């Protein structure tokens, strides 16, 4: 059994003296792993850094075996470009860690996140752009994996305008003016998540991260009996210190 695909490297683990078990998110087959003979060699190791794009050919006797990857040269070395950029590098580590945390191996549904992840990774060098895109990516991840928020209409009135908050329990949007007595228990909904033309201020991005962080931790990662990875918390803390998001 053989197949070839474009993929994003999510991580690599040494196997034996010179081999690697490469973990990738493919464009059409979801998250997949395979053994790369000689992948830990000094010459090849750099292309298997998380976030890089590679063209992979997988071969194995059965679809559910670990199999073997033949990897052509990486088509985009993102990791090397971001090594000097503290925040973007942390974002890259967070993106690949979250993907590893929530995608099951061999589940082709994971490929729904390939395009958005590629776009986000490509934008990490643009500091003014990626923070809002990152929030949208997390929001999209929740939807793609069946934990999407319902922002179509107010849960109390059914109206679809003036939505300002989200219920942390139901994940449904609410008009703040209709729920004043519960307002401190609701999560603020940043406008740029419902209107792509709306600006994303540092306060909006902070609210967006709070919103997606809540549902990633309480729903998505909880479904796997896992904690939201620490690296995300460190990313948010650094974004605060850098003034990219409001405190």
């Amino acid at each position, binding site marked *: 059994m053989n197949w070839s695909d474009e993929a994003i490297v999510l*991580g690599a*683990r040494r196997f034996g*003296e010179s081999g690697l078990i490469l973990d990738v998110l493919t464009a059409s087959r979801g998250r997949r792993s395979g053994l790369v003979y000689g992948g830990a060699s000094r010459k090849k190791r*750099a*292309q298997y*850094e*998380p*976030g*890089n794009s590679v063209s992979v050919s997988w071969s194995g006797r059965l679809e559910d075996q670990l199999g073997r990857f033949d990897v052509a*040269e*990486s088509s*985009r*070395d*993102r*990791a*090397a*470009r971001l*090594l*000097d950029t*503290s925040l973007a*590098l*942390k974002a*890259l*580590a*967070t993106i*690949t*860690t979250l993907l*590893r945390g929530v995608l099951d191996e061999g589940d082709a549904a994971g490929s729904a996140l390939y395009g958005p992840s590629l776009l986000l990774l490509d934008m990490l060098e643009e500091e003014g752009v990626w923070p809002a895109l990152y929030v949208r990516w997390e929001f999209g991840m929740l939807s793609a994996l069946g934990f999407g928020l319902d922002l179509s209409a107010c849960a109390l009135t059914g109206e679809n305008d003036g939505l300002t908050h989200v219920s942390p329990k139901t994940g449904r949007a609410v008009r703040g003016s209709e729920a004043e007595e519960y307002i401190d228990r609701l999560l603020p909904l940043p406008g740029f998540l419902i209107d792509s033309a709306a600006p994303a201020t540092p306060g909006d991005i902070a609210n967006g991260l709070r919103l997606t962080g809540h549902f990633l931790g309480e729903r998505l990662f909880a479904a796997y009996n896992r904690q939201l*990875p*620490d*690296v995300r918390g*460190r990313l948010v803390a*650094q974004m605060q*210190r850098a003034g990219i998001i409001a405190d």
Partner: protein
Amino acid sequence: MSERVAGPEILRMIELIAKLPGLGPRSARRVALHLLKRKDGLLVPLAEALGEAAAKITQCQVCGNFDTIQPCAVCSAPNRDETTLCVVEDVPDLWALERAGAFRGRYHVLGGVLSALDGVGPDDLSIAKLVDRVTGGPFTEIILALNATVDGQTTAHYIAEQLEPAGVTVTRLAHGVPVGGELDHLDDGTLATALRARR
């Protein structure tokens, strides 16, 4: 190998040798036979050296290096620069820098790097100890000599943040074209990094 060919002592020796990096069962058998054939000249001195190392070698409580004295020879050498501290991931990196002979300051071994994949967080490394050492020490420059990988550089950035209040200069090793490297054979990432760091 059956017990009739070799006794349990030899089998155990082969099993243990096979656990060394670069050696599998076949090469472990060759090594074991080589040692057995040179019992007096090699096996006995090696066994004595290993026994002595096991009894005497400890991890330096100051920097994390391995040595028979406490603190280690590097930390206790009086002729080294007291104002520069080089932070490395592990002991082999310290030894590599010492082999190069280009650095004459002090070292700090982290014991690994932050890795979300392997679940290694700041508390699993000797980062707090490093901050204490720098805060109370004579250092004016901290060199972060960590690997040019996502995990290595994420750790470097994290340490730089932690050391900010100490007011010391934090520097890093350059990334770029290796000595003897040909541009045509470099990967795109290295080339781009080298070009950005041109001088």
